[in-house]
């Protein structure tokens, strides 16, 4: 028992330079470091260290890195993780080596569903939550026929699937869709197909640069003028910031965190902005919160042994600027309140980062897939 080799070692894995680098990337690393500093740099008198690596959104690079971290560098916990494909691969390694991973960046709800492991926590959000937040809101406003532009890998598929069931459940219809490779730069022919489909809503089951490119092309081809609406299913603060309010105004989106929601969020976000020059995305905020929660668990359990820490994390509720009464379920899903937000009009925005207004709160128990529907091997049959 106790702290293995007298150090708590955290590995931060994320896309540091690619399509998804803005939403976690170096900002996420900074957030993790903030958490460690705020914790005092030590837990139970033992040093906390952090190393980081760029997975380039490639499962093999991520998994190999983590394998080496665990085999050679004795890493105890892996944080960050963006691309769902990388996450699933890494979680396999983490499970086989019996260490811990806390996923903040990935979206696929499959991570705690068919791919769930006892060694992983999915912390911030997932496609189920996004689908139920944004999808439901859009259908309720009359957007009952959908066409999907889907990123062709784990995340896109999960997103499309989750939204499809929401749309169908609310009486809508999916009339078609196309799957595009990750990091596509020419969306014109896809947009053309979306236009030809006659659907009321063009759902963007993609993220990062793919979403921004699709939005741009849609604008060029006059999709909105022609009477169709776009639904960005996974949009981060940084996307809105870089596209500008002109292009994005009125978009509805679901988020797990917005900096300008409460005094606590504002206080933390300002500190973060001072260090990085930008306001945090929900992922970056979640990374801080998750690292903090992990360190608390290590401290309470008095060891960094996997099983003890996992059970400590699961039995302690999370209460910080990020989540109120957050709770890690047996399948690894951390459930907390989510928020439906709308992008402000340029005229409504007061300052550079004043981008969203929160429409409503989606309570934790509604936001995430109930265990009763889960295919996770850890909870099935319950």
């Amino acid at each position: 028992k106790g702290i293995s080799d007298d150090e708590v070692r955290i590995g931060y894995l994320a896309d540091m330079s690619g399509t998804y680098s803005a939403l976690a990337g170096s900002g996420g690393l900074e957030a993790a470091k903030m958490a460690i500093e705020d914790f005092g740099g030590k837990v139970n008198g033992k040093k906390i260290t952090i190393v980081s690596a760029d997975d380039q959104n490639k499962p093999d690079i991520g998994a190999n890195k983590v394998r080496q971290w665990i085999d050679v560098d004795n890493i105890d916990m892996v944080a960050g993780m963006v691309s769902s494909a990388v996450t699933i691969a890494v979680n396999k390694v983490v499970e086989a080596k019996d260490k811990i991973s806390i996923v903040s960046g990935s979206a696929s709800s499959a991570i705690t569903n068919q791919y769930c492991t006892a060694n992983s926590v999915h912390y911030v959000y997932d496609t189920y939550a996004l689908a139920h937040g944004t999808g439901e809101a859009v259908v309720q406003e009359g957007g009952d026929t959908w066409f999907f532009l889907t990123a062709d890998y784990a995340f896109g598929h999960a997103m499309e699937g989750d939204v499809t069931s929401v749309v169908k459940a609310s009486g809508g219809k999916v009339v078609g869709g196309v799957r595009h490779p990750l990091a596509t730069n020419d969306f014109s022919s896809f947009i053309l197909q979306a236009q030809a489909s006659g659907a009321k809503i063009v759902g963007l089951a993609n993220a990062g640069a793919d979403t921004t490119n699709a939005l741009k092309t849609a604008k060029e081809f006059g999709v909105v003028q022609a009477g169709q609406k776009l639904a960005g299913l996974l949009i981060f603060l940084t996307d809105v910031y870089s596209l500008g309010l002109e292009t994005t105004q009125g978009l509805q989106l679901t988020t797990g965190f917005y900096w300008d929601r409460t005094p606590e969020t504002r206080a933390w976000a300002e500190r973060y902005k001072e260090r990085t020059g930008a306001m945090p995305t929900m992922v970056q905020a979640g990374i801080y919160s998750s690292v903090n929660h992990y360190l608390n668990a290590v401290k309470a359990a008095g060891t960094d042994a996997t099983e003890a820490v996992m059970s400590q994390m699961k039995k302690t509720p999370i209460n910080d600027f990020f989540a109120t009464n957050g709770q890690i379920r047996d399948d690894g899903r951390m459930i907390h309140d989510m928020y439906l937000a709308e992008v402000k009009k340029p005229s409504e925005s007061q300052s550079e980062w004043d981008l969203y207004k929160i429409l409503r709160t989606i309570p934790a128990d509604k936001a995430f897939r109930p265990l009763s529907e889960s295919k996770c091997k850890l909870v099935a049959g319950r």
Partner: protein
Amino acid sequence: MTTQTLDSSAMDKSVSKNRMLYAVLLFLGLVAPLAIYPVFLMKVLCFALFACAFNLMLGYGGLLSFGHAAFLATGGYITGHVVMQWGVTPEIGILIGTLCSAAMGFVFGKLAIRRQGIYFAMITLALSQLVFFLYVQAPFTGGENGLQGIPRGELFGVISLADNMPMYYFVFAIFVLGFALIHRTIHSPFGQILKAIRENEPRAVSLGYDVDKYKLVAFVISAGLAGLAGSTKSLVFQLSSLTDAHWHMSGEVILMTLLGGVGTIFGPVVGAATVVTLQNYLSQGPLASWVPVILGLIFVICVLIFRSGIVGEIQKFAKKNFS
């Protein structure tokens, strides 16, 4: 006559010298995992085999294939698939993967060998890109996700490879076999004709050799061995992904071969070890995001001033100074 006897005894000497060298290397290979992280060593071996296979084409066939990634990936995916879905033992999985790569090599070869030089390079590149896109979409590859959690399984159904040590010796054995096959091919009647074709193709035709067939056989051997490397690699890392199929991988194997020394038997091994070590080392440090730039720079330097590669330069140096 005297000159001839002299010659042959000199040859015997160099052969026995070579024997010594091989024995030493074999020994080093056997003890290496005691000192170095075995997964890293296995990676080096896989890439070394890959580069040797590639070198058979470029160094001995005079054909620059810019599509060898396709074979590496095919071996990996097929092995991963059959091991996971059919539950076969690792050696059978590797065999099937290798054969599939060789078959793909046959198809590539049939198409590309009709053109020479730069065209050959471009056609193989384009074909491998086609394969890349097929693998992006094909259901059995898992697309962008790749195949994850491939079990290493039990060798012949008895020896578990889950631990790194037994896996290492398995990989080492495969490497030695592959390397021996390449060595033999180069020094075989077939290798002689290959050399002749590289020297003067029209003349070989006029002597009645069907050069396309020879090139094709060489290409199939090369593709098969590249597949063998990929198959083995997928078991080592328990994963196969699109990275292996991407054309950057084809470029990397060229770099390894060029850096080590094109047309030398050990060049590709040295080149692969250097590149893999470099990547591993750099990806930890502050230069991580400069890795592609550094690889590019090495490329440029090799092409401009270092064309015979590390081993080639050493051989030149040795020739100059010791003979």
